[in-house]
């Protein structure tokens, strides 16, 4: 396992997976068509998600016997990169990452739900605020009483298209994890800064929930879902950064000012070189985080692997958030006026980058969390 954990490269299988996902996305969801969708009330592209599910994207880390691809979170991370690179509005994060990870932690109790999501027949999400920091404790805004759930959760990712809500709720025995049919909940869209990623408020007023985990199991399921989410989000951020870098390098080669391509000016060159360095580093960090998240699902993984996964996820959030935001901001600046227009897709990536930097804990909070784990304590008093 330690061999595997250190592998920061992409395998051939991963490169093949990337190629097929990229080809599908370039074909069905180029940035211009994503831009056209954002004027719709329902930006989420469920047809595209079905096609992605057909090539296995919905259930990569799910064992084959549960309807998945039997791959690992390393492969999920490659898909996340491509989804970031295309800002495709599909419920990958909510359904294939957060909900699926939580469900996989619940064993047989959630077998049917895993299967429903892994095949793409249904989509789901974990009913926590998308900004939630992994280590922030069990959510307590929903309570179970007499078999039904009451309460609300703000800012849930991919809730608008979800069929299943995986709801952390406090019941008599403490933390519990419930599966709720989305049709039993009131799901209200909020105006999202990230045009290509809808978030929604979820209100539960007597919805029936099926309990799939209790106590420490429920806590662990939520925590691991969020840690995995943070790791995979960093892969998406890497994809966003890569798009911004590529688009800007292309633009700098062709845009002429003062009789020269702007990419021949040394200041532009150095900024793009810096960006490339940052993206290269982000890639190593993301691979490490994905590997550590994958190792956590290996048989025999224990506290050491859990700590390693948390360190790597926090490291990735602390590092890659800034990479993606800087890449998108530099892209806008170096595109000049045209990058400030609505008609150019660049702003979709800027909004995604900045929103991702707030999602699942800001870099600031991840640095603070990391400092505790690696024994560099914050000053007291």
């Amino acid at each position, binding site marked *: 396992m330690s061999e595997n954990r250190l592998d920061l490269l992409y395998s051939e299988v991963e490169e093949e997976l990337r190629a097929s996902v990229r080809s599908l996305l370039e074909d069905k969801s180029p940035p211009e068509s994503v831009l056209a969708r954002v004027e719709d009330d329902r930006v989420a592209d469920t047809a595209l998600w079905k096609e992605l599910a057909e090539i296995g994207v919905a259930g990569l880390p799910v064992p084959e016997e549960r309807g998945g691809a039997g791959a690992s979170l390393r492969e999920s991370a490659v898909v996340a990169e491509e989804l970031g690179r295309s800002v495709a509005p599909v419920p990958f994060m909510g359904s294939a990452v957060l909900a699926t990870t939580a469900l996989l932690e619940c064993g047989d109790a959630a077998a049917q739900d895993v299967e429903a999501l892994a095949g793409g027949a249904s989509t789901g999400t974990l009913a926590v605020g998308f900004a939630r920091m992994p280590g922030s404790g069990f959510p307590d805004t929903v309570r179970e009483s007499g078999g039904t759930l009451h309460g609300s959760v703000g800012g849930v990712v991919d809730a608008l298209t979800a069929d299943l809500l995986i709801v952390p709720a406090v019941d008599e025995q403490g933390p519990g994890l419930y599966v709720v049919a989305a049709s039993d909940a009131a799901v209200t869209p909020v105006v999202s*800064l990230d045009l290509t990623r809808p978030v929604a408020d979820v209100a539960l007023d007597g919805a029936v929930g099926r309990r799939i985990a209790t106590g420490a199991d429920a806590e662990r399921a939520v925590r691991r879902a969020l840690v995995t989410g943070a790791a995979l989000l960093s892969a998406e951020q890497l994809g966003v950064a890569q798009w911004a870098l590529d688009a800007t390098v292309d633009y700098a080669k062709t845009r002429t000012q*003062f009789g020269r391509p702007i990419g021949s000016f040394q200041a532009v060159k150095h900024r793009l070189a810096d960006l490339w360095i940052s993206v290269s580093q982000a890639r190593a960090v993301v691979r490490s985080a994905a590997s550590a998240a994958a190792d956590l699902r290996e048989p025999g993984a224990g506290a050491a692997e859990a700590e390693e996964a948390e360190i790597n996820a926090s490291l990735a959030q602390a590092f890659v958030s800034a990479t993606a935001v800087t890449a998108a901001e530099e892209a806008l600046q170096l595109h000049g*006026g*045209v990058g400030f227009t*609505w008609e150019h897709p660049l702003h979709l990536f800027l*909004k995604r980058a900045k929103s991702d930097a*707030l999602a699942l804990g800001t870099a*600031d909070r991840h640095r603070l969390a990391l400092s505790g784990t690696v024994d560099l304590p914050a000053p007291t008093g």
Partner: protein
Amino acid sequence: MTTDPAGASLDASALRRRVADFVAEHDPATTDQHTFLAARFDAGLAWVHFPEGEGGLGAPRALQPVVDEEFERLGFTPVGREGLVIGLGMAAPTILAFGTPEQRARYLKPLYTGEEIWCQLFSEPGAGSDLAALGTRAVREGDVWTVSGQKVWTSLAHRAQFAILVARTDPDVPKHKGITYFICDMNAEGVDVRALRQITGEAEFNEVYLDDVAIPDSQRVGGEGEGWRVAQTTLMNERVSIGGHPEPREGGLISVAAHLWRERPDVRTPGLHDQLMRLWVAAEAARLTKERLRQQLAIGQPGPEGSAAKYSFSRLNQEISGLELEMLGGEGLTYDDWTFRRPEGVEFSKRAPGFHYLRSKGNSIEGGTTEILRNIIAERVLGLPPEPRTDKDVAFKDLPK
């Protein structure tokens, strides 16, 4: 020191006296703004450094703030002047410097009173930082120029009566030499104004399509082929606009972040505290720098610090608004309104943090990109040698596009 017709020298106290006399004759409480401003123009109290008869008294430029402050003190502060920024700030000094007597007589007064709104037709899709690469063509036949091309980033175009316009009149000479400067009637046939939506969702700016627009030669400002030099005056005035009042500590966007920090203990973390304090320090440094520049300008030592101030301001706005979202976390994931609409100016304070973040991205592009401002400082202030240029001595038509 300039002497006024009555023989008294035009120092600050003489001007204060004139303002007091004027206000005594035209009670701000009972005179409507247009009448008041028209009379103020005629009295030479619009721009005291302009010549007599053209809104001024030929007084030192440094005394203008004295006049403005005195009017304010005596109860007159004009309202609704936001739409006049291009007319007052850019068209007026250019027309004064290069316009014909007829042009000055025709345009300065209604521009000052606010009767006529102006916009600026400079930037083009292919000519942003490199304005001299502009491709809009003006062809002369007799006393009329026919102009065709596309301009962009034009604020106020949808409300403007007139535009200052640069167009290429001779593509056979190097690019800086074949440009001419015009006044364009925005109601003329062939002028098509389209709202340009920006990343905030709204449209502050326009694209302006010019399709065989006829401009009489009497609307030319400066000589044929002199447009680049004339435009420099316009642009210089754009970058040096510094207000007449000292700004208070913690003004601008930093106040939004500071307010949030004070009101909301839940957003506070040690790391964000350090970032906030760094930005607070940077904002205060920028404020003092601007104040120092204001003092220099007031005693007539204008420096290139205008470009630096604009650069600092844009960077600060971007960093502060970015931090504001970080402080808010989950709340920062939302936005207020993506509706495609035309706003009345930039309403920073009324808008969501996401708007602050997105709108401020434009600050480092509009009115000269950060890159160009740094070039200006490096070459004009520090005297560093220019880049090797391949586009200066070649006929415009032979340049790579």
